[in-house]
């Protein structure tokens, strides 16, 4: 469902993402891990069309994000780490706006809006201006908006910031359950324990290069150490010293 072929991005002299080739299947929960500045957000921005790759390509479904960007984006639900929301719209007005962008039927938008706002526990704030929302409520609203058009792929960048423990548990279970129904999730995070708990596959990136792609079990088998955190640190340290 998500394919990158030799995806490369340079910022001036710096190579932020270096020849990334990946494939994430339909219904797969893929976690993208790496230290700060490893190239996770740059990869995500190329996947959603916010950045043009210097070379290589990214496909969502069968659509090249550069060549057929509107069709590709129609399949995506994107939740950035700091989501943009229109401060002077209410939650419900924002959902209606998003429904319009995805050319959804009004009645469908209305019923799904209520369902999602209820699901993410922001229904009672739906008629308040977003400027009055807390950070967690904004995050929940952006989740609701991302799922409004029933996307085939959800790309989410560090989703846990600002969410309370109950919401984190709910979002984890919700995403996992959606993957069973065929949703593909591409998640970038620093929370290793959650990635370990819910991912089908994990990709580790360091200094722009993909260090490994495997299941949690497969990654743990690469080292003697039994803890995922230690393996992650070893792999990224090794890759850093080899690269540098």
């Amino acid at each position, binding site marked *: 469902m998500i394919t990158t072929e030799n995806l490369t*991005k*340079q*910022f*001036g*002299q*710096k190579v932020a993402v270096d020849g990334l080739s990946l494939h994430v299947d339909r219904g797969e929960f893929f976690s993208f891990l790496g230290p700060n500045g490893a190239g996770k957000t740059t990869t995500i*921005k190329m996947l*959603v*069309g*916010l*950045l*043009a790759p*210097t070379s290589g390509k990214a496909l969502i479904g069968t659509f090249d994000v550069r060549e057929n960007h*509107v*069709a590709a*984006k*129609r399949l*995506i639900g*994107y939740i*950035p780490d700091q989501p*943009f929301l*229109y*401060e*002077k*719209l209410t939650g419900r*007005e924002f959902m209606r*706006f*998003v429904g*319009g*962008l*995805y*050319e959804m039927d009004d009645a469908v938008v209305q019923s799904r809006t209520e369902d999602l706002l209820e699901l993410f526990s922001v229904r009672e704030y739906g008629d308040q*201006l977003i*400027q009055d929302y807390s950070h967690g409520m904004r995050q929940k609203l952006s989740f609701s908006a991302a799922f409004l058009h029933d996307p085939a792929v959800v790309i989410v960048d560090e989703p846990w910031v600002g969410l309370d423990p109950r919401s984190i548990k709910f979002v984890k279970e919700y995403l996992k359950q959606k993957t069973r129904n065929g949703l593909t999730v591409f998640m970038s995070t620093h929370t290793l324990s959650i990635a370990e708990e819910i991912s089908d596959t994990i990709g580790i990136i360091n200094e722009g290069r993909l260090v490994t792609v495997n299941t949690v079990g497969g990654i743990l088998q690469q080292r003697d150490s039994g803890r995922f955190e230690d393996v992650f640190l070893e792999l990224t340290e090794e890759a850093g010293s080899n690269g540098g």
Partner: protein
Amino acid sequence: MDKVLLIWATKTRIAAHALADVRNESRLKIGVILFFVILLWGGAFVASYEALGFLKSFDPSQSPSGSTIGAIVMVRMLSLFFMMVFLMLVFSNVLIAFSTLYRTEEVDYLMASPVGVCELFTARFAECLFMSSWAVVFLGTPLMLSYGLVNDAPWFFYLSILLFYLPLAVIPACIGAVIAMLIVAISPQIRGRVFAALVVLTVAALLAYLYRTFNIERLSEAELFLAMLDAMKGTQSPLLPSSWAAEGVLNCAGRNFGRSAFYFGLLVSNALMAFVVTLAVVSKLYYRGYSLLKSTGSRRRISGRGILGRLDWVFGFLRPQYRSLIVKDVRLFWRDATQWSQFVIFFGLMAVYVANLRNVPTYRDSLLWRNATAFLNLSSSALILATLTSRFIFPLISLEGRRFWIVGLAPLARSKLVWQKFWLSVGTCICFTLGLVILSSVILRVEPLIMALSIMTIVLMNFALSGMAVGFGAMYPNFKEDNPARIVSGMGGTLNFLVSIIYIAVTIGVQAGLLQFRTYHFFGLLLAGVIAFVITLSAAATFVPLALGMRALNKADF
């Protein structure tokens, strides 16, 4: 197109919510602002009406063609007005397009949505068009309305102004957007500097053109008048869209509806053509430039190198807390090219004007004229100072809002933050304004009393206007906004500017009035009284807003 309409509808809803929020503002503040807005518009209308009425009263026999000199000047004036509007719109659209098309989070959001690039551009273009042209509508309507009333124009003339204005505004908006897209696509690495250099070069070219056209030292009064008329003839060039709008509106005023319709068709067809060409450029350059801008590698800035790297050393004499805050403010200001380029333009224009005063020999020997000019220069310097403090100093406290986790938690009283902004403002602005006033006084060879009064006034004004900008900035902060231009355009910023203007008008008014009593025996007493009044007023204008600002900031929640 559906998505464009959807985005516009959403923006309209957002505007409606923002407008509804005005209800939460202080009624006094809204009242003061409304009063001055009406006063400004009314003043412009009365001045235009009187001036055009004066021109209309000229004798027809003065012109061989039968039309009055006044009518000719009036037509040229309107053509000049339309051309100035056109050029201003091109210029402002370049800057607005850059920020509206590339530098907002909303564009990032829409880019990640299933919205085509041309649809996204069209939606944002309307915002550029609105933001660049509303002020022209506000300031242009008094002139156009006066023209219609003075010339007894039919009702259709007033409608035609609106009809002609929209396509006239579209063409420069297209030109501005294309220029911005070209610059971003070609040179994203040096965008800030390029924009600033373009601004400075454009202003310099305009000044050179005006200087060559009106080199008044070599012209007698009659020649000057003819030279002005001749220069203004260029504004009626048939190649300029502004002249089509002027011709169309003027023909409508003269009831030549056929000709007026021709110019309207010409303007509309060219506006549509300009938009089609712009869309072609958009499909090639917009996304490319957007992505390039996001991909620009950041330059390393090494401490200890260059002026900005040595600021800690320059301000080494200050206490560490003040030094840190001042160095931070100066660095942020300098690294935002859109900020300092405006500063350069304001003072550059004023300096060029003052330096050119020596080229005006006709009245140079008249003491009255020299003193009047000195007060005029003082007023101009004060107005520029008020613009600067309102634009650059007022937002400083608001800009700390999002960083209050660091500044607010530092072992530093909030009142010290207010004092730091105040002294930064006084210290910076006084260097420029005092220099300008001394320079103009020396060039004009004004008498010592006027020079002393001018210097005293500008020094006091630096304190008062800085006190008001910082004080009002602390009283009416906007901690959610990171863009200084948007902070200024709020109610607090407008109120600060209006109160600053009132203060300037009173301060200069009483001194200008004082000179009427030069020959009276009680002049010395009056002079002492006026000086005491100006000092008291300035002290109140400095310290009252500062005290209120400190009180508000101490109570503020973050």
